[in-house]
């Protein structure tokens, strides 16, 4: 029970356990068709956005660098996942194995791009870094929008302009996006992937690297002067974050029959960022809850249709204002104290 004694591990175990419990309950409810149609359709997107929020939290919350192009990594993962499934589908018969391979390929591709993009990005600071991630996100979207890939017996054929004569059948057809040949995502896959990603992030944050990265976030100069290689540590966090966004992209793509590059735009990056900030920077639990709420909320508000996004915007502004209000912060602290005091009393009474 050494794990239980450390506060962070205890918190992590509680988070992990509650996610497992909630997901298992939802899984069985879904199996028994007790969920409404719209909610059961939201299950895979919820998993996708949980992974996106967790991975962005690694960049924004733990590493402390604002990234505005996270959807770019998601789209790289999504498109390479689609390519992998279509081209390897004939060799790998087992859908679960195929999905695992696709997720790995998507993650690795996103990691490679994360590394390449990280080289210039991580040299910059603050808002300049943010705008360059935004720029990379837009470039990825724009290039994928002009990408044409076909497949035939000889393999894959790639072109970068419209009207190119390519042999075989289109997998990625420029602005019309990619055709997904097999529907491989389901709540089970999403569930497992969420747990895997949570374990990876928890371990990473808790490791030597994680502590180094937090030290760099809190004071880069001090961290550098005790001999930490800032760029190398930043790069590790950035690449892991990109890889996980890529995996989320594969999960996302395999849930639809076609995906378009323009779906992964600036707004997608921003909505993931909103999840991270609302959930609390650096808090895994917060990211998960915020991702679930913000994915389900627009669906719940579907009845108000025209006012849906308006309400979303107002709620967003009000929550931010409330959260930064000094009186509310004071209230949160006293409320927390009171609640813990109540529990202490109960425990004491039991003894």
């Amino acid at each position: 029970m050494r794990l239980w004694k450390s506060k962070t591990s205890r918190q992590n175990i509680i988070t992990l356990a509650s996610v497992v419990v909630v997901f298992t309950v939802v899984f069985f409810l879904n199996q028994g068709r007790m969920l409404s149609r719209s909610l059961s359709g939201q299950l895979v997107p919820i998993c996708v956005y949980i992974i996106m929020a967790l991975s962005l939290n690694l960049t924004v919350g733990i590493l402390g660098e604002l990234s505005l192009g996270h959807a770019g990594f998601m789209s790289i993962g999504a498109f390479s996942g689609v390519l992998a499934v279509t081209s390897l589908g004939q060799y790998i018969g087992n859908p679960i194995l195929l999905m695992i391979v696709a997720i790995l390929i998507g993650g690795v591709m996103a990691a490679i791009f994360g590394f390449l993009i990280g080289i210039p990005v991580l040299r910059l600071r603050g808002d300049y870094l943010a705008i360059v991630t935004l720029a990379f996100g837009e470039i990825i979207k724009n290039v994928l929008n002009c990408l044409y890939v076909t497949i035939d017996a000889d393999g894959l054929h790639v072109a970068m302009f419209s009207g190119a004569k390519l042999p075989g059948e289109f997998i990625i057809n420029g602005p019309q996006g990619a055709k997904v040949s097999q529907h491989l995502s389901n709540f089970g896959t999403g569930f497992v992937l969420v747990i895997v990603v949570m374990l990876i992030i928890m371990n990473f944050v808790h490791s030597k690297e994680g502590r180094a990265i937090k030290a760099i976030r809190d004071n880069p100069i001090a961290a550098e002067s005790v001999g930490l290689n800032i760029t190398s540590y930043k790069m590790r966090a950035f690449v892991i974050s990109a890889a996980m966004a890529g995996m989320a992209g594969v999960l996302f793509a395999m849930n639809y029959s076609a995906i378009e590059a323009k779906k992964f735009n600036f707004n997608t990056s921003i909505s993931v960022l909103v999840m991270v900030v609302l959930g609390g920077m650096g808090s895994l639990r917060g990211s998960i809850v915020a991702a679930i709420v913000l994915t389900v909320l627009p669906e719940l508000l579907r009845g108000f249709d025209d006012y849906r996004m308006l309400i979303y915007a107002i709620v967003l502004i009000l929550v931010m204002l409330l959260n930064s209000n000094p009186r509310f912060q004071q209230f949160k602290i006293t409320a927390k104290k009171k609640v813990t005091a109540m529990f202490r009393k109960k425990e004491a009474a039991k003894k």
Partner: protein
Amino acid sequence: MAFLSNFINGLSLGSIYAIIALGYTMVYGIAKMLNFAHGDVIMVGAYVSFVSIYSLGTPPILALLISMCVCTILGVVIERLAYRPLRSAASLAVLITAIGVSYLLQNVALLIWTSNTKVFPSIVSIGSLRIGSLTVTGETIVSIITCIVIMIGLTTFTAKTKTGKAMRAVSENRQAAELMGISVNRTISVTFAIGSALAAVAGVLYCSMYPVLVPTTGSIPGIKAFTAAVLGGIGSIPGTLVGGLLLGIIEIFGRAYISQDLSDAIVFAVLIIILLVKPNGLLGKKVTEKV
């Protein structure tokens, strides 16, 4: 001739980007925040002048003035209600609030004016200029001249007037400025007022050139202008002019000579390359790090 014509088109698009970017740059320099809602103020400005030309039948110049007034008020109100309470909060909280305001403006516009595309009438009544085989449209001339006038006006304003000096002082050191008796809140309000009025001008000019008006019209020029501000060195007025013009020219040349579809990617690639060579933008001040 095609080269010269592209160059002039680039200049005129760049002037509009520069006018929008001024709003970003001034707010960033003084309030140290990225105002993501700025692009949507452009859209509101364009809609207001659209309404006043079509429904109220005002002459274009009056419509422009009305939309400048509306945007000024809008900018000040947004600052007062959404950003001022967050003055001491983390910069990310302000950023998210700005994004919230941006969604809010877009959706209010969607409710009022619906998502149907409106065809914006050009407010420029002067005709095209012909020199040999080169044709320069009235919109092009007007936007370049407007940009020059605004740049000169704003530089004089920040250099000579008391409010302008206060703005520079606040951007230099907020606490010291406050100790010298400058009202920081008032200065920031003035900044938002000027930035939003300029956004209205830019909105009208942009829509005169690309006459498609929908509630998301502002977001693309908004992002591009933000890029322009960073390219030139965010916080610097001459830098904004350089960044804006450069961005406009690169975009038009990229579209004409390299690829129609990849023009945005080219613009952003140039931004990345410039930031790698000059991490604070072309004319940005180098910030020395203190321990």
